[in-house]
């Protein structure tokens, strides 16, 4: 098992290099000019050239990328580089990007994790319920609800919720703040709807597929109670694909958080990113996307490892074929 985990972590490295490379290249081709941004429109050509040289913008692309990864020394702009936990400073606020991310990411993590727990807690049991009564009235109702949930634009739902629950009914605040847990209810519910719908559908189809398997017939033929057949025999097998989907949903939740946070004025990484995009603050965009991608990859790694714990076949196939 440990060897398996180590192997998975090693496999993560090229992916992360690729991600940073991709995002860095995207930012590199951005039409906005950081030197111009720093100096304002009226700078002299000489000052402008000096600024570009100071920021390393005159260096070849690959040098700039390596500097982004491993840092470089400069009295004003120098930083330690991504691998040492330094993402440089914002062009606009001159604050350390990494610091800003570190202060906001926990808020996003709180929101996304809460939403994930909520969608699993509701989506999986409802999916199981639907699967045990396929094509019944209740199954139809949940199927339609799930499709509705998967089709709703999150940012619109957020506004509709604000309109009803904050403006009209006044039950919950329209603005959220991580310090006030009541105020996160609305964004958390908004964020969870999509994932909940997807988990519900996946659980249902996965359960239905498992219930058709021969070993379920074997379990019934043993005279086991239907409850035991479902809980012990069907659910564990059905959960295997659901774990993967739940892991992928975490990425979707991070995405969804971008706009949900903005609409609820919640100080998370999404808000930082959107603000940075409006201000064309390259280091901050770069930093936040890379950070989110790394977090997402780590979550996927955790999912893979969990997979190995639930499914006895995974680690075995990595080690060798069964004893004969």
């Amino acid at each position, binding site marked *: 098992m440990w060897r398996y985990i180590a192997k998975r972590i090693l496999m993560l490295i090229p992916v992360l290099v690729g991600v940073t490379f991709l995002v860095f290249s995207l930012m590199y081709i951005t039409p906005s000019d950081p030197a111009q941004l720093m100096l304002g429109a009226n700078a002299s050509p000489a000052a402008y050239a000096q600024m570009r040289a100071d920021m390393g913008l005159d260096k070849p692309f690959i040098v700039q990328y390596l500097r982004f990864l491993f840092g470089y020394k400069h009295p004003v702009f120098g930083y330690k580089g991504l691998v040492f936990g330094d993402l440089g400073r914002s062009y606009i606020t001159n604050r350390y990007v990494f610091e800003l991310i570190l202060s906001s990411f926990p808020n996003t993590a709180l929101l996304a994790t809460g939403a994930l727990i909520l969608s699993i807690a509701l989506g999986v049991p409802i999916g199981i319920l639907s699967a045990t009564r396929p094509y019944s009235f209740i199954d139809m109702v949940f199927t339609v609800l799930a499709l509705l949930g998967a089709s709703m634009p999150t940012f619109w739902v957020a506004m509709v919720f604000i309109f009803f629950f904050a403006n009209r009914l006044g039950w919950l605040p329209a603005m959220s703040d991580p310090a006030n847990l009541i105020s996160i209810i609305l964004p958390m519910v908004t964020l969870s709807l999509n994932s909940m719908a997807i988990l519900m559908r996946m659980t249902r189809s996965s359960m239905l597929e498992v219930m058709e398997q*021969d070993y379920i017939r074997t379990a019934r033929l043993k005279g086991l109670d239907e409850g035991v057949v479902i809980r012990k025999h069907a659910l564990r097998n059905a959960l295997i694909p659901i774990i993967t989907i739940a892991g992928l949903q975490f990425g979707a939740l991070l995405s969804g958080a971008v706009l949900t946070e903005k609409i609820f004025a919640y100080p998370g990484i999404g808000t930082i990113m959107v603000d940075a995009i409006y201000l064309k603050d390259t280091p901050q965009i770069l930093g936040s996307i890379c950070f989110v991608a790394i977090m997402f990859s780590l979550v996927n790694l955790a999912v893979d490892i969990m997979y190995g714990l639930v499914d006895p076949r995974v680690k075995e196939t990595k080690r060798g074929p069964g004893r004969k």
Partner: protein
Amino acid sequence: MDNLLEIRDLAVHYYSNRKVVEAVNHLSLDMKKGTVLGLVGETGAGKTTLALSIVNMIRGPQGKIVQGSLRFNGKDILAMGRQELRGLRGKDIAMIFQDPMTALNPVLPVGDQIAETVIRHEGLTRAQGWKKAEEMLETVGIPGIRSREYPHQFSGGMKQRVVIALALACNPVLLLADEPTTALDVTIQAQVLDLMRKLIRENGTSVLFITHSLGLVAENCDEVATMYAGEIVEYGTVDQVFGRPLHPYTRGLFGSLPRLRDSQRRLTPIPGLMPDPTALPRGCYFAPRCPDKMPVCGEIHPRDHLFEGHRVKCHLYGGNGREAGNER
């Protein structure tokens, strides 16, 4: 009442796309205690459906037992409540499937899968259940310590041994063996059958041995029933049926088989195909393929005719045999 199992006039239908698949039709069959009854037939004859009906495991909404009665030890299985049925399944009647690869739950250790059965039926504790599971594995020639391992760690032959251990764990009265060795290689098949024969003899278990192989029937069974299009067309002791097959279909099966002993080059296959189970022909179901077809065969469904316990459903024997009670 020396009949362990009495099936009377059983009919099972499946419903799909507004069509009715008549899988089992007016089937009557008795099984005596302590016998091994071979049920032979080709794909789609309804063998597995029959086996599942015996434990009332035809599941709606697609499948339904539409008619007939099933008595096991004198008790009507179809009238049993859920709880009573669960007490029966796995304890008094156990089943072995064709494919050992899919019959075991991949995420549970094999020991657990055996233990849960004995815990359920014999009221043992967890520890006792696991101990029993290890004993059962030893009985089928697998070291007890391997009870903690998962199905994928066993080869096909080993898995089928585990399935056998599982089926025999509660010492069932009746074992439904649905093509238990078809998925295995010949030499492994010989091993597994050897083991099954030994265990069955030791425990006095009655077996319904479902197979498409006449060879396996000859070597393992006391009695044999031939199934075609959902009904039993011939029934008798192995000596009777193999000595003098009466039904043209049974004879066709023998003719289709390449023999090791004979050196004849051409086989005499049965022409044509199985009838479509959603549109069975009027009269005898076998008539369209039958070499001995008479005008009456296309019109009237034949009755059972009985010759000293050797039963055949065919018009050829209408004149001189004593008719059995089954009306159709």
